[in-house]
């Protein structure tokens, strides 16, 4: 009884338990669900969402929200093939350049939020709109194929039977957990998220941390964009759009407060897996797009009712 209560009060654990339950039940009832290949595929999809949601977790912990991650993914997926120099056979130069651009966009978001005092939700929304326009102007409407070797390796390779994307996600997760729990900046983000005024009067720099958090969010979105590009082998306008809402949903499903100041990436990890699993299950049911959308929305809502409730403030 006490164990159940403790689990209910620990959203990351709760989400993890839900994932395990769903996997066990689905594995027993649905043919093919429990196959290694299928589970690996689910993890591969979760990795993308998990990486986007890494930046989103930090931003939300600090009391903001980043509505531009979808647009940043699209930007990286389209720009990378265009700016990868032919002369570089490894493709690493292109990746570094693209990540630099993604981080730069994040920095701009942060600068708007910190120095122009535009609320993050508006700043990033405006940035998303802006990027959407810029992309079409720069790249036109057509899809671009990727030839960058490193990107293709990232999207397709399976060292030791584990997809490279999943390995990347493991690295990202370790880095994220260290940032949040073992580094001073993590504590500062959380303090700023819970009470920005008190944090500022305690000597926590609002400007620097806001810049940092949005730059990280841009970086992780860019990383996810490269992974998606590698998995898809093609970039096109709108490729990142589905990841905006799913990244937010993964964070909130993991028990991180949308109001900031409380939560951890340890919850976002099972949150991302849960999200992908439910989407996969809905696909299995073989319903019309309308029903699929309804089921997806209802499921998110239902899961949020369990894990995302806010205490009265």
């Amino acid at each position, binding site marked *: 009884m006490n164990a159940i209560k403790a689990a209910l009060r620990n959203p990351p654990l709760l989400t993890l338990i839900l994932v395990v339950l769903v996997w066990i039940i689905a594995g027993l009832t649905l043919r093919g669900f429990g196959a290694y290949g299928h589970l690996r595929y689910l993890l591969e999809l979760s990795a993308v969402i998990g990486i986007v949601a890494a930046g989103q977790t930090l931003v939300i912990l600090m009391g903001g929200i980043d509505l531009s991650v979808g647009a940043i993914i699209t930007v990286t997926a389209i720009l990378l093939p265009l700016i990868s120099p032919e002369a570089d056979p490894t493709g690493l130069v292109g990746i570094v350049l693209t990540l630099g651009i993604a981080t730069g966009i994040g920095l701009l978001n942060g600068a708007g939020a910190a120095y122009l005092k535009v609320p993050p939700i508006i700043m990033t929304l405006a940035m998303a709109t802006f990027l959407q*326009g810029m992309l079409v102007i720069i790249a036109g409407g057509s899809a671009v194929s990727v030839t960058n070797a490193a990107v293709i390796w990232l999207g397709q390779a399976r060292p030791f039977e584990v997809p490279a994307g999943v390995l990347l996600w493991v690295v990202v997760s370790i880095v994220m957990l260290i940032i949040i729990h073992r580094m001073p900046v993590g504590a500062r983000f959380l303090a700023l998220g819970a009470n920005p005024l008190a944090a500022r009067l305690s000597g926590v720099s609002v400007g620097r941390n806001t810049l940092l958090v949005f730059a990280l969010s841009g970086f992780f979105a860019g990383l996810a964009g490269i992974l998606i590009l590698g998995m898809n082998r093609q970039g096109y306008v709108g490729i990142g759009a589905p990841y905006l809402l799913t990244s937010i949903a993964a964070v909130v499903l993991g028990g991180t407060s949308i109001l900031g100041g409380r939560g951890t990436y340890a919850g976002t990890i099972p949150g991302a897996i849960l999200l992908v699993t439910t989407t996969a299950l809905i696909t299995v049911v073989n319903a019309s797009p309308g029903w699929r959308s309804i089921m997806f929305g209802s499921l998110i*809502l239902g899961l949020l009712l369990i894990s995302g*409730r806010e205490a009265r403030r």
Partner: protein
Amino acid sequence: MTVTRVPANLYTAVQRRRNRGLTGLYLVVAAFLVVYAILFPGLFTIGGFSKFTQNWFPLALVTMAQALMMLNGGISLAIGPLVSLGAVIAAVTMGGPLGVLGGLLAVSAAGLFIGAATGGIVAYLRLPAIIVTLAGSFIITGIALLLLPRPGGYIPDWFSDLLAGHTPVAFGLLVLFLIGWKVYLATPLGIGIYAAGNNPVGAYRSGVPVERVKVFAFALSGLLAALAGLFVAAQTGSGDPVIGTPFTLNSIAGAVLGGVAFLGGRGTMRGVICGSLLLSVMINVMFFLGFPPVAQYVAQGLIIVGAVAVPQLTSQWRAKP
């Protein structure tokens, strides 16, 4: 015996105070209107005025819908899907046995119901509005897709002509909506929106039925968005399950331009009207200047940031000793 410091008409005095600070916005709107009138002198004909207000009308409605949510201290990501759903329901039902009236009732009922349900979840189950509407947007889009998987349906021609023809009916309707909004904000439930958005705990302790205030405001917000969809259906002559998508962003942009604050409890009807008008004029002006549609996105992004940043920076600059 009353004392001299009691304003002769408290209501007017309160409204005047609440709307102070909008002068800058009035000037910007006026300037854009002048530019627009120079670019497009047809504005002063009945037809031109009608077309102009028809473009403005749905934008004004969704901005009002979003402002209601933001005054409550939340933000809705489901405005666009609701507009789509309104359009779809109108296109599906107006060909039915109850005709236009039936369609109107069905759209209104759907908007009110979805809004109230969202509000109920937010108020009683204590989930933040942004994630409820995020999940809700999938459900609403799904319903719209079920009702009408691809663009189509039926809107009677006379109805389209009435709303989106060469007469300024839309403008008249807008005035009616504004009067309704003003009346609502002069009721205890309406004023409760400000109180509950500003200081929910304090409002609860003061005896404001905070939950009921929320549910009503959300329901009205849903109604406005769905009716905007009905209008869009009349404009295009059919229903389309994704036609509303841009309205989510536009509604936020309009409300932000109109000075509705994000933390709840701040913002006025006049601001909302000016914000939506400004947005509408800007979109029109860019169209007439021959901007490609995507450049409008670029401009819109910059304008939204500017609209928030400029007042912030000027007030900061003024605060410097």
